[in-house]
């Protein structure tokens, strides 16, 4: 356990050393927030509510989403795929710790750093210009933080699986681009799932992606209450566990492949 705690802290510190990159990324995330916000402002100029969202909900949604890009790390994380390509994976797998847990710990450490330094600032800047919503109940805040943590696990589970695909494919970037596209759209990042037409929303509801963005934000906006809320969070958690388990099975298969072929 002690090891994973150290790995967690290392994950945090590792990203803390790129200060210029953090500031530059923040700038980009925030400007994109404004670009997306004004599209919604134009939309809500024509209608008062869409899919149960009013303008304030939608703007809150945008700036929370901009902050969550890096926190859940939706795009381009290829450390394992690169290790597979270079062959370093063979030594990594023979180390005396659980490979998947190691990376999860490091990813959670990273997520903590990004949540604080990339997650909160875009929201604060957005709140200076727009009327953003803040939950009143402390319980909502608590559940939101918990749901973001689970969102990181869902995202990690997916990324872990996509990275392992590099064991079987010569180039992982194609699969990566497809999964990124699905993740970006079906997570509800680009447009809230509530805005989707019925059939598309139905598809998004049975897939794990919404656990990365839509679920935590809906918790924040208090879109679900009571048992419905419990249900949504339970499904999110179940996906995180299922993806983790699937990643484990895949890792087992990859490990056998390494043993058989020597890498």
């Amino acid at each position, binding site marked *: 356990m002690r090891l994973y705690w150290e790995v967690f802290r290392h994950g945090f510190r590792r990203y803390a050393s790129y200060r210029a990159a953090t500031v530059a990324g923040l700038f980009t995330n925030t400007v994109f927030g404004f670009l997306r916000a004004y599209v919604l*402002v*134009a939309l809500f100029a*024509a209608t008062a509510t869409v899919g149960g969202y009013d303008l304030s909900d939608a703007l809150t949604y945008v700036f929370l989403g901009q902050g969550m890009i890096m926190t859940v790390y939706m795009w381009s994380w290829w450390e394992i795929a690169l290790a597979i390509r270079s062959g370093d994976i063979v030594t990594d797998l023979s180390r005396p710790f659980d490979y998947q847990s190691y990376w999860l710990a490091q990813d959670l450490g990273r997520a903590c750093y990004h949540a604080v330094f990339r997650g909160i600032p875009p929201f604060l800047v957005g709140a200076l210009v727009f009327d953003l919503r803040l939950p009143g109940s402390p319980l909502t805040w608590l559940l939101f933080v918990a749901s973001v943590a689970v969102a990181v696990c869902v995202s990690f589970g997916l990324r872990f699986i996509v990275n392992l695909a590099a064991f079987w494919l010569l180039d992982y970037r*194609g699969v*990566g681009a*497809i999964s990124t596209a699905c993740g970006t759209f079906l997570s509800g990042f680009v447009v809230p799932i509530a805005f989707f037409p019925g059939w598309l929303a139905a598809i998004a509801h049975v897939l794990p992606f919404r656990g990365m963005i839509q679920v935590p934000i809906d918790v924040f906006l208090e879109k679900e209450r009571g048992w419905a809320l419990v249900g949504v969070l339970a499904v999110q958690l179940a996906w995180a566990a299922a993806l983790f388990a699937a990643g484990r099975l895949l890792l087992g298969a990859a490990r056998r492949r390494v043993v058989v072929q020597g890498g």
Partner: protein
Amino acid sequence: MGSELALYPRLAWSRVRGQVEYRLSFVLMLVGYFAATVADFLAIWVIFLHLPLLAGWTLGEVAFLYGTSYVSFKLADMVVGHLDVLPTLVRSGSLDTLLTRPLGSLFQVITIDFGLRHVGAIAQAVCVLAVACVTAGVPWDAARVAMMPVTILSGTVIFASIWVLGASTVFWTMGNGLEVMNTFTYGGNQMANFPINIYAGWLRRLIAYVVPLAFVTYFPSLYLLAKEDPLGSPGILRFASPLVALGCVAAARFAWGQGIRHYQSTGS
């Protein structure tokens, strides 16, 4: 300059050959990039499910803006998008090797790669644009047909110039904070996908005029779609894109020249 233009296809082809070597991977990559950008258009389509006109523009018209901007953006990305490796080139000393050849420094950095994978995204944008050309109600005539390639080319040049300008800062910053460039490239495309009259004045002035993204598609599209400008800009702006593009090239060349000069006086 002339000899470099003649060399470009040869060098680009040498970059492409390696990429298509593994056919399945390459096809998957094209599909991936196609899918990734389809999601961008789906977002626009979803918004129009809830209203007929966005700030006075129909879905077809916004699709037209999206198509022209996206094709320009991805063409530029294909040719110069890999300028973000410049910090690595400087740090590893590879730039020095390039400087010992009888070619321009910018030309050589650009020909280090060729982003053939962006063809996937370009295909998607061309599809959207093709449909939009029919559905957006363009009153096609000879002048408008001729204006289309001019618009795309000007847009490509404007985006490429922004990339070069951003990359030129590397000679001073060593690539610290180069990600800001994404705000003006990817962000510029995102912005140009929508009619600029939806943006608040400060943002519009910053990204549309200071960084002249309104000339990528908004102004020429007003002409092509025969639309009144909700912002009431002078009509001459609709034809100014090629001039603006030339201005951008001059600015980019100047910035790159200053950057190289700075590099040559300081080393890495």
